[in-house]
């Protein structure tokens, strides 16, 4: 009963329903316009767009599915040539270009990830030399290639947007949890009841977490569903190192995840996203427990989410590396804004574990301290 009512209090805020609806609409519009809208393929100069392009890319990639080898990469180059940026192509009004030009997701993958494009001033002329450690690793036959459309940076990018939307909704939902009881003077009654202290505080936290996790899962399911509908499941079985080359090339540090199927890595990423949402909720709940004004709790919570990201991006990344800076980077990276990204980069296992442990500590501390602060609230002080 306590939990149900605390949950009802959160759900009855109209601004959250509006926010969720706007979030859905934004994601749907972005998916429709930017994700599907950027899908293209060229078959003998004829331009295919959106679902037609996806279908063609999928069929083409299936022909080359399996372990990626130098020979296979060369065969792809021989058949389709190098990918050329659309702004460098001569195109008719319909988007078609010179007959004889072929371009698809497979040739794009080889151009960007397996060619000498980086060492040759942006123009690919051949596959990368065998001295190139990372590219060589991608073509050594240990990585499973397949159609990875959608389930790569496109999904990560959209999911990051989803995380920001969810973070905003979680902050709006959790900021009033305690502060509104103070501001609305209901704390005076609640705290004089038998279950008004410990149990109610626990029910409030549980309700806030349920809401936060629920909205994250709901929006994520919507996103995953959309990607499954349009891109299918092929990309989930591709080696994660090919879908997210950062897992191999982003750092010299050791990483064990790059051979796993993309689906497994994305599942870990989505779970890390859930942890990041819960940590955001815990931080907001703590701030809510110390602020008597909901608006002030909202502002501080937003600052607690965004400021570390801003400090990290503007200052810490540009500073000369020292032990202190490394430690600060590690701590800031473990905060909700960056937390899930560890799974899609070559972050070492220990680094990631520390990040999750640190986040877990914040989560537990936020809840315990929030509960304590609320239970000890002095009415009228």
């Amino acid at each position, binding site marked *: 009963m306590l939990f149900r*009512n605390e949950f009802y209090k959160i759900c009855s805020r109209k601004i959250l329903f509006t926010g969720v609806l706007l979030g859905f609409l934004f994601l749907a519009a972005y998916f429709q316009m930017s994700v599907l809208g950027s899908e293209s393929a060229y078959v003998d100069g004829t331009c295919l767009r959106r679902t037609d392009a996806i279908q063609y890319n999928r069929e083409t990639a299936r022909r080359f599915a399996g372990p990626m080898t130098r020979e296979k990469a060369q065969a792809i180059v021989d058949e389709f040539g190098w990918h050329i940026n659309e702004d460098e192509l001569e195109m008719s009004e319909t988007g078609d270009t010179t007959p004889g030009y072929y371009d698809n997701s497979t040739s794009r993958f080889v151009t960007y990830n397996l060619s000498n494009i980086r060492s040759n001033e942006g123009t690919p002329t051949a596959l990368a030399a065998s001295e190139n450690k990372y590219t060589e690793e991608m073509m050594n036959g240990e990585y499973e290639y397949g159609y990875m459309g959608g389930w790569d940076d496109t999904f990560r990018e959209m999911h990051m947007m989803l995380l920001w939307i969810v973070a905003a909704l979680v902050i709006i939902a959790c900021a009033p949890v305690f502060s509104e009881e103070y501001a*609305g*003077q209901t704390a*005076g*009654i609640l705290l*004089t*009841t*038998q279950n008004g202290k410990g149990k109610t505080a626990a029910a409030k936290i549980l309700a806030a977490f349920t809401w936060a996790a629920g909205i994250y899962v709901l929006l994520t399911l919507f996103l995953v569903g959309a990607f499954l509908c349009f891109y299918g499941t092929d990309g989930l079985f591709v080696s994660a190192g090919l879908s997210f080359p950062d897992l191999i090339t982003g750092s010299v540090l050791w990483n064990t995840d790059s051979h796993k199927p993309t689906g497994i890595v994305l599942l870990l990423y989505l779970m890390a996203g859930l942890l990041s949402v819960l940590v955001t909720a815990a931080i907001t709940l703590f701030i809510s427990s110390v602020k008597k004004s909901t608006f002030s709790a909202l502002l501080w919570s937003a600052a607690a989410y965004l400021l570390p990201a801003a400090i990290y991006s503007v200052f810490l990344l540009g500073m000369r590396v020292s032990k202190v800076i490394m430690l600060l980077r590690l701590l800031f990276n473990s905060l909700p804004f960056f937390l899930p990204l560890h799974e899609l980069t070559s972050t070492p296992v220990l680094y990631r574990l520390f990040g999750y442990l640190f986040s877990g500590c914040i989560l537990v501390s936020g809840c315990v301290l929030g509960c304590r602060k609320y239970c000890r609230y002095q009415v*009228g002080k």
Partner: protein
Amino acid sequence: MLELKIQNISKHYKEKTAADDITFTLKNGVYGLLGENGAGKTTLLRILCGILMPDRGDVTLDGISIRKMGAGYRTLLGYLPQDFGYYPDFTVKRYLLYLASLKALPRDKALVKYKEMLELTGLLGEEKQKIKHLSGGMIRRLGIAQALLNDPKILLLDEPTAGLDPKERIRFRNIISSLGHDRIVLLSTHIVSDVANAADRILIMRRGKIMENNTPDALIQAASGHVWEFVTTPAKADICQKQFTVCNVKTEGNELRMRVLSGERPFAGALAAAPDLEDAYLYATENREVL
């Protein structure tokens, strides 16, 4: 019988003393806590509820500090704050059942009790109304209903009649009178008539101190011989207002009938009047030293 002891309670805010070494004991019965606005009544009630820590002193129930009793003390408590906070989007039923769960009432008992309370406070039929759609008086009655929901042994009511119309006020007084037999009821107000008939004892508070702690009859008795009534002109009335504590002024044609406090007969024509509790309150606050 419960014994709630307030021992040397002091509470200071930045520049204000809200409670200044207050000591008294409450046993079963209805207590009226009278005092002007800012006298420290709300602070005292909050301390008794355990939602505000005193700077000094302690509150004990049957010899045990309420701080140590924790949830055990709160089980016995019913509290209606002066600023009654509520959830505008809750219906009356949801609100009362929510409070019942906070007060650890079993579900079946809660369903019976909430209906009883609605009947007692005249809110029956409003269960499905959202609180934001209720009138101020109805919201106040809802506050009273929630305070009584767990059949509390210690009932603390801070300005419970604020916003009630005369009919509701009378109804409320009757409810309070019937409650005092087997519990402690402390009713804080600055309206004397709220406690005139219902209270067994009156506590008068001023500037953070308890000035009087007596029965209504004893307070009235103390004011006896100090209340005078006379008819005078408006011009003389102005002079009287400066000289005496005026209890009441009533227009009678071109003249004014005045009721004042005075140690001796103010004018030759003035008649001694039988004091009521309002006179006694004024007499206590204007003429007595702080206890």
